[in-house]
C-alpha cells in the first residue's frame, strides 16, 4: 500500500525559504531553528498545493530576473560593436569599467543611471572591470568574450560566480593579470583548479571563500601551478587542524 501523503523532511537551518537558493554555509555549521515566519510558511507549503506553487513561482521569477540581467546584448553588438556592448552590459549590472588608454572609471551613479558617452569610444576595448557585488554569471561572459585585453577583473562578493564561471575564464588566458575572488560563496577547489590556464596572472585574491575547506593547501598547490602569481588573502596555516596538539607533543617530549 503506498502512502497517500508525501512527507518532506525538514532540512537544516537556512536563511530564506526558496528552492535551493540557500546560502552555501561551510560543512560544520550547526543546524539553527527556523524563525517563526519561515516555519509557518513551511507548514503551509507542505500542506497546500497552491502555496507550494506560489513559492516555486517566486523562486522561478528570481531565477528569470537574474538571467535577464545576463542576457546577450545582441542589438548593441550589431549597432555599436562588441566593445560598446560589453561596456553597456557591465553598466547595466551596476558594475564599473575602465577603457584601455583612459584613466577614469565609468560607473553608474547611486540611482543606477549612467551616461552614454562610452558609445563614442567604440574602438577602445575594456582593460579593467569591477563587477563586485553584481549578479554576473556564466552566461553573462558571452558579452565579455571579445574583450581580449582585459587586465583586471574584480568579482568581490558576487553571489552568482561559481566553478563553471571560473572554468570559462580561460578566454582571458593571454591578458588577465589581476583577479579578485574574495567573498564568492560558490567558488570551490573544483573551479580554482581551472585557473591554471591564466598564465599571465600576477595577483589573485582568495580571501573568505567559505566553500574552500583547506585554503592554505589550495594556496600552496596554486602557487606550484602559477609560479609568478601572488596569492593574497590566505595564510598557509589556514584550514589546518589546531596547532595546539603540536605544542603538547613538544611539552611531553621535553620531560
Amino acid at each position, binding site marked *: *500500500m*503506498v*502512502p*497517500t*501523503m*508525501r512527507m*518532506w*523532511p*525538514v*532540512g*537544516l537551518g*537556512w536563511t530564506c*525559504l*526558496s*528552492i*535551493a*537558493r*540557500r546560502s*552555501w554555509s561551510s560543512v560544520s555549521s550547526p543546524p539553527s531553528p527556523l524563525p517563526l515566519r519561515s516555519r509557518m510558511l*513551511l507548514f503551509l*507549503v507542505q500542506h497546500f*498545493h497552491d502555496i*507550494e506553487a506560489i*513559492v*516555486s513561482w517566486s523562486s522561478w521569477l528570481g*531565477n528569470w530576473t537574474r538571467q535577464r540581467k545576463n542576457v546577450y546584448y545582441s542589438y548593441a553588438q550589431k549597432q555599436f560593436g562588441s566593445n560598446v556592448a560589453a561596456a553597456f552590459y557591465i553598466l547595466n549590472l551596476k558594475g564599473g569599467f575602465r577603457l584601455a588608454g583612459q584613466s577614469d572609471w565609468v560607473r553608474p551613479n547611486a540611482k543606477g543611471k549612467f551616461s552614454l558617452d562610452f558609445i563614442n569610444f567604440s574602438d577602445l576595448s575594456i582593460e579593467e572591470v569591477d563587477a563586485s557585488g553584481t549578479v554576473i554569471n*556564466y552566461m553573462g561572459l558571452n558579452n565579455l568574450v571579445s574583450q581580449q585585453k582585459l587586465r583586471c577583473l574584480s568579482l568581490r562578493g558576487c553571489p552568482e560566480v561559481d*566553478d*563553471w564561471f*571560473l*572554468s*570559462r575564464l*580561460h578566454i582571458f588566458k593571454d591578458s588577465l593579470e589581476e583577479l579578485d575572488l574574495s567573498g564568492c560563496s560558490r567558488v*570551490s*577547489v*573544483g*573551479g*580554482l*583548479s*581551472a585557473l*591554471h*590556464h591564466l598564465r599571465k596572472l600576477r595577483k589573485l585574491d582568495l580571501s573568505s571563500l567559505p566553500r574552500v575547506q*583547506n585554503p592554505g*593547501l*589550495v594556496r600552496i*598547490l*596554486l602557487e*606550484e*601551478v602559477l609560479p609568478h602569481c601572488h596569492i593574497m588573502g590566505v595564510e598557509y596555516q589556514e584550514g589546518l587542524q589546531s596547532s595546539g596538539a603540536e605544542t603538547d607533543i613538544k611539552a611531553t617530549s621535553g620531560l
Partner: protein
Amino acid sequence: MWKTWTGLAGAVQRVRASLHPIPYRLASTFLCAPHSARCFSTGRAACKDFIQELEQQLKAFRHKALTAMPGSDWSPQNTTAGLPPERADIVIVGGGVVGWSIAYWLKRKERVRDGVRVLVVEKDPTYSQASTVLSVGGIRQQFSLPENIHLSLASADFMRNINEHLGVLNEDPVDLQFTHSGYLFLASEKGAAVMEENYRTQRDAGAKVLLLSPTQLKEKFPWINTEGVKLASYGLENEGWFDPWSLLNAFRRKALSMGVYQCVGEVTGFRYSSHSMSTTDGDMVAFKRIKYVNVRMPNSLEVQPVECAIVVNAAGAQSGKVAQLAGIGSGPEDSLASVPVPVEPRKRYVYVLNCPDGPGLDTPFLIDYSGVYCRREGLGGNYIAGLSPEENEEPDSGDLEVNYGFFQENLWPLLARRLPAFECCKVTSAWAGYYDYNTFDQNGILGLHPLVNNMYIATGFSGHGLQQSPAVGRALAELILDGGFRTLDLSALGFERIFYKEPVLERNIV
C-alpha cells in the same frame, strides 16, 4: 477500531488483575471479575503497574487512532510492506542514474499533475554492484560521434544549472563536487589523423577543445613524458569529473518529491500478449505487448504483477537478461526476433594510487593512446588509474573481486612510462565495477524495440552512461511522451542498427 476496544477491554482486565491477583485466573473468561477474596491493600507495586500499563494502553490507543485517520497506510489486509502499486503507467526497470533521470524527466514533462504514474524498480537499494556509483565519474565531449558530443554537452549544461532543475524546497542544494580539469587525450602517429578529424567534429558540435603539439604539451604539463606522442587533444570547458552518488541522489530525491513511486524488488518476468502477422514473403512475425511486469520482493518468493502501459529497460549491465525475459533474442534464425539486446556486464578495475611527487592541481584526466587513464583525486597526492583490457583478456565478470596482478603487469609499466613520477607510487586501494558493455558497437541503444511494442531500451553506454544520463533521460521522456525526439535527434542510436548490422562506432572509447 474494534481492535482498540478489545485492547481497552484487555487493559480493564489487566487493571482488575493487578487489583485482584488471586481470582484472576478464575475470572479470565468473563469480562467482570467475581467478588471473592478481595485484597484490600493494593501496595505500591500494583499501583505503579496500573499507572504504567494505563499510560502504555493510552499510547497504543493514540497510535491506533492515528492509523485510523486518513493519510496513514494502514489497511485491514495484512499486506507485505514495500509492494509496488498494482497498476502503473510506466515501469522503469533499473534504479541507476539513467533510470532515475528518465523518471525525473517523465515527471517534468507531464502536462497535468499526476499525469503519468511512474514506478522505478531497483533490486539492490545499497547499489553495491551498480555501475553508477562505482564509476570514476568523468564527463567529456571528446567523442567521434556527433550524437555523443551533443549528449555530453547537454548533460554538462544540465549539471551547470543543476539546482534550478533538481533543487527541492527546503533541502540542501545539490553539490556535485565538479572538478573542471578537462580531459587530455594523447595520440601516437597512428591515431593523429583520427584525432584531427575528431577535433573538427567536436568543434563543429560546439565542444571547446584544443589541439596541442608535443612541445606545447611539454610546456604546459612538464611532468608528462611526451615520447611517442604525436598530437594531444585538451578539453577546455565542460569537462572534468564529479561525484556520481550526488547526481544519483539528486535525481532520486527530486523524482520522489515529484511523485515517482519506488519499489525495491527484482523483475523476474513479463506477461505479454502476442500478435502474429505475416510479411509479404510469408514469414510470421510476432509482435508482443507487455501487460504485466512481475516484480519479486527481496528475500521472498512473493511476486507482485504490476500492470503497466510502458516498460523502460534501464537495467545497465543486466539489461541483456531483462530483455531476454521479454523474449527478445529467442526466435527463429535470421529473424528480427532472434537478435538479442547485445549488452553484457564487463568488469573493469580502478586503482587508487598515492604518489607524493605526482602532478599538481592542474592535472587533467589523462588518457594515453595505450588505453591507460589517470586522474587526480582530492588534494593529498592521490590518483585514480585504470586500463581497459584487451578483448581476449577480459576478466571474468562473475564477481567484483580486484586483481592486483593486473595493475602490476599491465597498468603500471604503461603509467610509469607516460608519467615518470609514478615509478614510485603505492596502491592504497582498488575497486571493480561493471560496464554495461554494448558488444556490438560500444554506443548506447536508445529507443523502442521494433518487436516488443511497449519496451523502450536505454542502455549499452559502455562506460559513458553516467556522463550522458541527464540528456538521455530527456531524450527518452520526449520519445515516450512526445512520440519522437525533440531537442536532440538520436535516431542513429536506435535498436534497428543492431538488426541491420550497421555499427555506429565510437572511436574514442576508454
